[in-house]
C-alpha cells in the first residue's frame, strides 16, 4: 500500500539519481493537518475586467486569514471593502515573491479576445508557485450564457487542464463555475481548492449554484463544519471508507459506519476510535434499505450525510465473466446506493439540507480492461447523481459524487506491478492518491457551507492521464 518509488525519489540519493536517469520525480504532496490555516502562504488574486466575484473572493480570503496580494485597481478596492488589505502586486516589483495560490476571477470574460487576460495574469507568475501550490480559475457556467461569453467561459477548461499538466511540484489547477446569484456560496469550495485538503484533486471542473436549492449561505465553523451532523458511511471498516469515517468525524460529524457481517470487528474498531456507531448489514439484502432507514430514524432521528462508499471489484474480461459475477458488482455498487437513497428520501429520513455522496470511479468515466461490470456500475453512480438531483434539491439537499483514480489501498496493491506503476506515474502529480484525499473531497461536499455544490462529479485522481 506504500509507494516505494515515491519515497526513493524524495530521499537524498533519489534526488541525485532520478533527474540524471530521467526518472520521474514525484513530489511529496502537502496534506491537511487539523488546526492549519486553509492556505498558508501568499495568495495572488486577479480579475478579468467586469468580473463579479471580487467581493466574494475577498470575503473568503478574509475569513480564511489569508495573506493576499492583488494588483492596484478595482479588485484591491473591493478587497478593502471586505476589510482586507492586500499587498500590492506588480510584475516588475514582485521580485523573488512566491505564491501558494493563484486565484483568477474570469467571470468578466465575455469574448474570446478577452481570454488574453488569462495569459496576462498567469504568465508572469507561472514559475512563482510554491510546492503544492494552487491555481484556481472562477468562471460562469457556460450553459447559462450565450454567444461570445458562452464560448469564452467554456474555453477556460482547456486552460486550467493544461496548466495542471505544466505546473509541477505538486501544484493543482482547477476551474470553478459559479452560477449568477451563487456568489455568496463560494467559500466552502474556494477554501477546499486552496487548502491542502485538495492535494490530489487537479484538472477538475466544479459547478456551484447550478440546480441547487436557493438557500442562503450558511454560517460555518470551518474547523468543525459538520458539527451536530449524522453521517452514514457504507463500507467504513477499511480503506477509503475508513478514511471517510475518520475525516467526517474529525469535522465534527457523528459517523454511523456500515459494513457486512464478516467485517463487523474491523468496523467496530473504526467506529469506536472515532466515537461513532456501527451497523452490520448487507446492503444488497432485499429489506436492507427499509431496515437501515428505520434504524437511522429511530437511533439518530434521521441522517444528514450519506456516503455510498461500499463497493467491490470482480474483474474478468467480458468473454470470461459469469453472470453472477456481473450481478454481484452491479448489486453492491449501483443498485444498493440507488435503493438506499430512494428509501431515505421516501421515508424522509434524510434531513433537510442533507448530503448524498456517491463514490464513482475513474473506471466509470474512462473504462478499464477487465472491468466491464465495475465500470458499468460506477458510470451508473454518476447517473444516480443526475437522476436524484432534482428530488434532493427540492428537499433542500445536494447530491454529488467523487470519482477516485489510483488510490493507494489494499485493492490497488493487488494490481500487477507494471500496471500499478503506470497507474501511479501517468498523472500530473506523478503518484497515487491516499484514501484521505477521497475523504477530504467528500467532506467538502458534506460541509454545511456546500449547500450550492450540486450535481458534481469530481475526480480525485491527481489529473491522471487515464480517462482524461
Amino acid at each position, binding site marked *: 500500500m506504500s509507494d516505494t518509488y515515491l519515497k526513493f525519489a524524495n530521499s537524498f540519493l533519489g534526488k541525485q539519481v532520478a533527474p540524471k536517469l530521467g526518472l520521474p520525480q514525484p513530489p511529496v504532496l502537502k496534506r491537511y493537518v487539523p488546526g492549519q490555516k486553509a492556505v498558508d502562504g501568499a495568495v495572488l488574486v486577479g480579475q478579468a475586467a467586469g468580473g463579479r466575484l471580487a467581493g466574494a473572493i475577498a470575503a473568503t480570503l478574509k475569513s480564511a486569514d489569508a*495573506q493576499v*496580494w492583488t494588483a*492596484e485597481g478595482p479588485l*484591491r*478596492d473591493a*478587497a*478593502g471593502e471586505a*476589510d*482586507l*488589505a*492586500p*499587498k*500590492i*502586486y*506588480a510584475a*516588475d*516589483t*514582485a*521580485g*523573488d*515573491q512566491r505564491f501558494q495560490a493563484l486565484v483568477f476571477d474570469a467571470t468578466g470574460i465575455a469574448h474570446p479576445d478577452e481570454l488574453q487576460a488569462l495569459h496576462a495574469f498567469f504568465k508572469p507568475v507561472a514559475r512563482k508557485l510554491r510546492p503544492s501550490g494552487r491555481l484556481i480559475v472562477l468562471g460562469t457556467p457556460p450553459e447559462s450564457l450565450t454567444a461570445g461569453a458562452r464560448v469564452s467561459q467554456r474555453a477556460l477548461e482547456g486552460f486550467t487542464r493544461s496548466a495542471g499538466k505544466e505546473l509541477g511540484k505538486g501544484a493543482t489547477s482547477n476551474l470553478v463555475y459559479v452560477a449568477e446569484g451563487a456568489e455568496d456560496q463560494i467559500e466552502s469550495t474556494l477554501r477546499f481548492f486552496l487548502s491542502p485538503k485538495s492535494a490530489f484533486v487537479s484538472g477538475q471542473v466544479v459547478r456551484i449554484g447550478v440546480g441547487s436549492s436557493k438557500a442562503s449561505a450558511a454560517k460555518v465553523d470551518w474547523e468543525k463544519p459538520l458539527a451536530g451532523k449524522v453521517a452514514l458511511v457504507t463500507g467504513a471498516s477499511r480503506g477509503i471508507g475508513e478514511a471517510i469515517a475518520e475525516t467526517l468525524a474529525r469535522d465534527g460529524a457523528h459517523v454511523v459506519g456500515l459494513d457486512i457481517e464478516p467485517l463487523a470487528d474491523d468496523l467496530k474498531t473504526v467506529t469506536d476510535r472515532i466515537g461513532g456507531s456501527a451497523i452490520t448489514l448487507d446492503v444488497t439484502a432485499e429489506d436492507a434499505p427499509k431496515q437501515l432507514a428505520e434504524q437511522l430514524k429511530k437511533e439518530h432521528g434521521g441522517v444528514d450525510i450519506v456516503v455510498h462508499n461500499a463497493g467491490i471489484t470482480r474483474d474478468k474480461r467480458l468473454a470470461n465473466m459469469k453472470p453472477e459475477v456481473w450481478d454481484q458488482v452491479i448489486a453492491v455498487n449501483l443498485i444498493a446506493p440507488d435503493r438506499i437513497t430512494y428509501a431515505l428520501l421516501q421515508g424522509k429520513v434524510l434531513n433537510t439540507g442533507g448530503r448524498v455522496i456517491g463514490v464513482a470511479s475513474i473506471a466509470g468515466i474512462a473504462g478499464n480492461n477487465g472491468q466491464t461490470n465495475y465500470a458499468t456500475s460506477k458510470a451508473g453512480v454518476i447517473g444516480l447523481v443526475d437522476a436524484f438531483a432534482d428530488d434532493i434539491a427540492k428537499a433542500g439537499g445536494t447530491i454529488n459524487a467523487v470519482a477516485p483514480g489510483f488510490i493507494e489501498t489494499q485493492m490497488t496493491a493487488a494490481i500487477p506491478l507494471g500496471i500499478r506503476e503506470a497507474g501511479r506515474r501517468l498523472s500530473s502529480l506523478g503518484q497515487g492518491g491516499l484514501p484521505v484525499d477521497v475523504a477530504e473531497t467528500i467532506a467538502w461536499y458534506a460541509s454545511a457551507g456546500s449547500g450550492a455544490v450540486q450535481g458534481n462529479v469530481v475526480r480525485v485522481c491527481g489529473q491522471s492521464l487515464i480517462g482524461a
Partner: protein
Amino acid sequence: MTEPKTARRVAIVGGNRIPFARSNGAYATASNSEMLSAALEGLVERYGLEGKKLGEVAAGAVLKHARDFSMTREVVLGSRLDRATPAVDITQACGTGLQASIYIANKIALGQIDAGIAGGVDTTSDAPLAVGDKLRKKLVAVNQARTGGDRVKALLKIRPGDIGLDIPANREARTGLSMGDHQAITGKEWGITREAQDELTVASHQRLAAAYERGFFDDLMTPFGGLERDNNLRPDSSLEKLAKLRPVFGGPEGTMTAANSTPLSDGASTVLLASEEWAKEQGLPILAYLVDAQTEGVSYVEGEEGLLMAPAYAVPKLLERNGLSFDDIDLFEIHEAFASQVLSTLKAWEDPTFNRTKLGRDTPLGAIDRAKLNVNGGSLAAAHPFAATGGRIVASLAKELHQRGSGRGLISICAAGGIGVTAIVEAA
C-alpha cells in the same frame, strides 16, 4: 494639591553637527565620545554656552561599547558646559536623536528644566566587538579566580573552538533579517519600483548639494576629521548612474541598491532646546517650536506589518491630535533610511485600503507634494549615523522654517524594532 502647570512652548534655538562620513573612512579611528564632543563643542561655541549649567543633556548611540554606559555624561564633563549639568544616555535605534529631543522638550514644556541639549552619535567604524558567549563565560571564570593557580586552571579550560567574535550586526533579533531585508519585503508588498527609488535618491543628493551651495549648513555644522561636508554626497548623482547598480537586498530581482539605501556611516549631531523665556534672557534666537510628538510601534515579527512602517501609524495619530491634515504641513522631513521605506510610507498614506483597514479612516491622509519633501536633502545623500539623524533633521527643519518666516513641518523617522518617531515643528 498644587495646580497642574500648563505646558510651555518649547523653542528650538539651533543645532550643530559634524559632517557625516561613510563607514571606515574619514572617521575610522574616531570614537563616539570624540564625535559627540566635537558636535557639542561647536554648539557651545555658537550659542555661548561656556560655563553655563543647563537643565539636562540627553544623547545616545545605537552601537556603543559597554564601557560607554554613561557616554553623554562623560562628554558633558569633558565639555565647556558647567560640569553640574546632568546628562542621560537614551537609545531607540534610529529614533534616538529625535526621541532625545522629545525627552528634553517634554521636560521644558512641563517646567522641569529651562534649557537642554539633545543629541546622538554613531560609529560603525569603531564598533564594539564582543567575544563569543563560550569564551566570554570562561574569561569571566578566569576573572573570578582568586589565586594564580586557579586562574591558570581556568585559562586552560579555553579551547580553540571557544574563540569567536560576536560582531554587532544590523539585524532584527526576532527575525534574523537585516533592516534592508525587511524593507525589501515591505517595498515588494507595496509595489515600489526601482525607478521611483532611484528618482528619490537623485533628488536627495541634488537638494543636499544645493543646500551646501547656498551655505545653508554654515551655521549648522562644525568641520571634523578633515571633512567639511558629508562625504556620502554625490552632487553628480543621476538616474543613468544609479540604474547600473546591482540590487543589494531582495535577491537578484530586488529593487534596492547601495545608492537607494543609506550606507553605514559615522557622525554626531546636537540640538539646543529651551523655554521661550530662557532663550530671550540669554539673547538667543528662536528658530522654531517643537509642538508635539508621537511614537508608535508595529508588530512585524510574523510579517503582520513592515518593520519600518510604524511612522505610517504615528503620523495620522499626531496630526489628528493637533487637528491637522497634510494640507497644513509645509515641509515634510521623512527620514530616508531606504528610498523604498519613504515610498512605502507615502503610498500607504495615499492608499484608501490601508487607510480604511489599518488606520480606520474613511478618507486617505492623501498624497504629499514632493516639492515639500526633504527640501534640503535627506539621509540617502547625507548618510545615516543611526542616532545622529534625528538631531540633523530637527535642526535643519527649524532653520528652514525660520528662513521662510512661517510654516509648519512634520518629522517622521522609522526605527529598528518596528518603531516610528514623529514630531511637529512650527516656525517661530
